[in-house]
C-alpha cells in the first residue's frame, strides 16, 4: 500500500513537471515574441506597427521561413542540412536560366522544385547508402558542390528579368481590405509559407510517415525494431528539405527578379538558428512547425527592430548569436527537467 501511494505521488510529481515543461514548451517562445512586439511598438511607434513595415517583414522572412521548415524536419531526425542555402541558389539560378531559354514557366518552376528534391535525395543517400557517419558531412559537401555548380552554370553573374509568373510568388500582394495608404495586403510569399507550414504540420502530426519521423528522431533503434524503414524515412526527410529550399529559391527569385549565384550564402545558419530558437531539440524528436514559425518570426522581428533602431549589421550578428545561446540554454534546461522530476 505505501508503495502504491508513493508511486501515485511519483506519477503526480512527473505530471506536474510535465505540465510546467509543456507550458514552457508551448508558450515560452510565444511570450518572447509578444515581448518583442510590445517593446518595438513602444520604442518605434511610428515605424514598427505600420502596415508597410509589417508587410515588408512578412516578405523578408519568407525565404528563411521556407528554409527553416525543411531544416526543422531534418533536425527532428537529429540530423542537419548545411546545404539549404546552396540548394536554394542552384534552384533559383537554374529557374532563371530555364525561363531565359524559353522553357514554359510552369515547367521551369517544377524543374526548380525537382532540382531541390534531387539534391536533397543525394544528401539522404550520402547518409543512407554511402553511410557517411553524420549528415553534417554529406550536406557540407553538397553546400560546396551545389554552390560551385551555381557559379559554373551562371558564369558567376546574376541572371535578371524573370517572367511575371515567377515574380508573382516573391513580390505580389493580395489586397485584403482598405484603399490607398490604408490598404492592407498579404504577400503571396507569406501565403506560400503558411500553406507549406500547414501542410507540413498535418504531415508530421497526422500521418504515419510523420509519426515515423518523430520516432526516428526519438529512438532510431526502437523505430527499427518496430519495423520502420529508417533509411526510407531519412531519405524522405532530406528530399523534403531540398524541396523547401527550392521553394525558398523561387520566392527569392521572385522578390529580386533575378537568379544570382551568391544568393542564400550563409542562409543555412539562419535556418538552423530559427529552428533552434523555435524550440526544436538538436537531439531530435522534439519540436513543432508552429514553434519553428515563431522562431522565424523572432529572427525576422529582431532584424527588423534592430534596423529600425539603426543598430549596425555587425551588432545584429552579435545579438542573434546571444539569442541563439539563450534559446539553446532553455533547451538544455528543458532536457534536464524530466530527470529531476523522475
Amino acid at each position: 500500500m505505501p508503495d502504491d501511494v508513493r508511486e501515485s505521488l511519483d506519477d503526480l510529481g512527473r505530471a506536474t513537471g510535465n505540465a510546467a515543461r509543456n507550458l514552457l514548451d508551448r508558450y515560452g517562445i510565444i511570450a518572447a515574441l509578444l515581448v518583442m512586439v510590445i517593446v518595438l511598438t513602444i520604442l518605434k511607434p511610428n515605424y514598427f506597427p505600420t502596415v508597410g513595415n509589417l508587410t515588408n517583414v512578412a516578405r523578408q522572412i519568407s525565404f528563411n521561413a521556407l528554409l527553416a521548415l525543411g531544416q526543422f524536419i531534418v533536425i527532428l531526425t537529429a540530423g542537419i542540412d548545411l546545404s539549404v542555402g546552396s540548394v536554394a541558389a542552384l534552384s533559383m539560378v537554374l529557374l532563371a536560366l530555364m525561363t531565359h531559354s524559353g522553357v514554359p514557366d510552369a515547367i521551369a518552376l517544377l524543374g526548380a522544385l525537382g532540382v531541390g528534391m534531387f539534391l536533397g535525395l543525394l544528401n539522404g543517400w550520402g547518409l543512407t547508402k554511402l553511410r557517411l557517419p553524420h549528415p553534417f558531412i554529406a550536406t557540407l559537401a553538397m553546400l560546396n558542390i551545389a554552390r560551385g555548380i551555381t557559379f559554373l552554370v551562371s558564369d558567376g553573374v546574376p541572371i535578371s528579368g524573370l517572367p511575371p509568373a515567377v515574380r508573382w510568388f516573391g513580390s505580389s500582394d493580395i489586397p485584403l481590405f482598405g484603399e490607398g495608404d490604408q490598404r492592407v495586403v498579404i504577400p503571396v510569399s507569406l501565403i506560400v509559407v503558411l500553406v507549406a507550414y500547414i501542410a507540413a504540420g498535418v504531415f508530421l502530426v497526422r500521418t504515419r510517415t510523420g509519426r515515423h519521423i518523430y520516432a526516428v528522431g526519438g529512438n532510431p533503434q526502437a523505430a527499427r525494431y518496430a519495423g520502420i524503414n529508417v533509411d526510407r524515412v531519412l531519405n524522405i526527410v532530406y528530399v523534403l528539405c531540398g524541396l523547401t529550399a527550392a521553394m525558398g529559391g523561387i520566392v527569392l527569385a521572385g522578390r529580386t527578379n533575378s537568379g544570382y549565384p551568391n544568393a542564400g550564402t550563409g542562409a543555412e545558419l539562419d535556418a538552423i538558428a530559427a529552428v533552434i530558437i523555435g524550440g526544436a531539440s538538436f537531439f531530435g524528436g522534439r519540436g513543432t512547425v508552429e514553434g519553428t514559425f515563431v522562431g522565424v518570426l523572432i529572427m525576422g522581428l529582431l532584424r527588423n527592430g534592430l534596423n529600425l533602431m539603426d543598430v549596425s549589421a555587425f551588432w545584429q550578428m552579435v545579438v542573434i548569436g546571444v539569442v541563439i545561446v539563450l534559446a539553446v540554454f532553455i533547451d538544455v534546461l528543458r532536457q534536464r527537467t524530466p530527470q529531476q522530476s523522475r
Partner: protein
Amino acid sequence: MANVVEMSHIFKSFGPVQALRNVDLLLGYGEVLGLVGDNAAGKSTLMKVLTGAYSPDSGTIRFEDAQVQWTSPHESRLAGIEMVYQDFALAGNLDICSNIFLGRELAQPVLGGGLRLLDEKQMEEASRNLLERLKIEIRSVRLKAENLSGGQRQAVAIARATAFQAKAVIMDEPTAALAVKEVAKVLEIIRGLKEHNIAVIIISHRLQDIFQVCDRIMVLRQGRNVGERLVAETTMDEIVAMIVGAKEDAQSASVRSVAAGV
C-alpha cells in the same frame, strides 16, 4: 497441448565457431519457458534463428504446425512472434499510445483516399483496452514514454508485443534493468499473458525471476541442450549445476516427453 514452436536439430556456425549444435526447443501454447545458460551458451543465437535474424545451417523450425523459413524478424513478427528488447525499445519522445502502435499505426483515408490520416481516437481506445486487459495501471496512454518508470516502460513494451495477435513473445532480460519493487509487477504481467494463451520465452540471468514465472526451464551450454526441467520438479542448485556443467544431462527422449507434458 500442442506446441506453438518446435525447433529441431538446429545447427549454426560462424566460421570455425559452432554456436548451436543440434539444439531442440519446444514451446507450448501459453507456456512460459525460461532459457538459461552462461554467456555464449547460444541463447541469443537460438532466438535469432527462431525470429529469422539468422538462418540455421541445418535443422527445421515449425510454427503453429507448419514448417517455416523466415528470412527476417519482420516476417516472424507478422506471423506472430514478437521480441521485447532489453533496453525497452520505446521512443521516449512519443506517448504510450504512439509507442504501442509504432510501425503499425491505424490510419483512415480522407479526401477520397488521397491522404491517410492517423486514427488517434481508435488507437487511444485500443491502447487503453490493451493495458486494462493486461492489468497494467498507468494513468493515461498519452503520457510520454520518457516520463514512465523503468517498470512501466517494460510493461508498455510487453503490452506492445502482445497487441497484435502475438502467439509467442521472446523477452531478453526483461527484469535486468528494473528496480526491485518493479520486478514483481513485470513478472505478474508475464504470468498474466498465460490467460491470453500467449507463450513466452524468457532469457535471463536472474534465476530467482525464472523460478517465479516460468513453467519450464531449458539449459544451453556451449551451443548444446544440456537439460530441461519443469520448475515444479527442480531446484535452483540443480539448474546452476547444469549451467556450469557440473552435471551432464544427456539429451534424451525424456526431454520431449517433459515438453509434451506441459
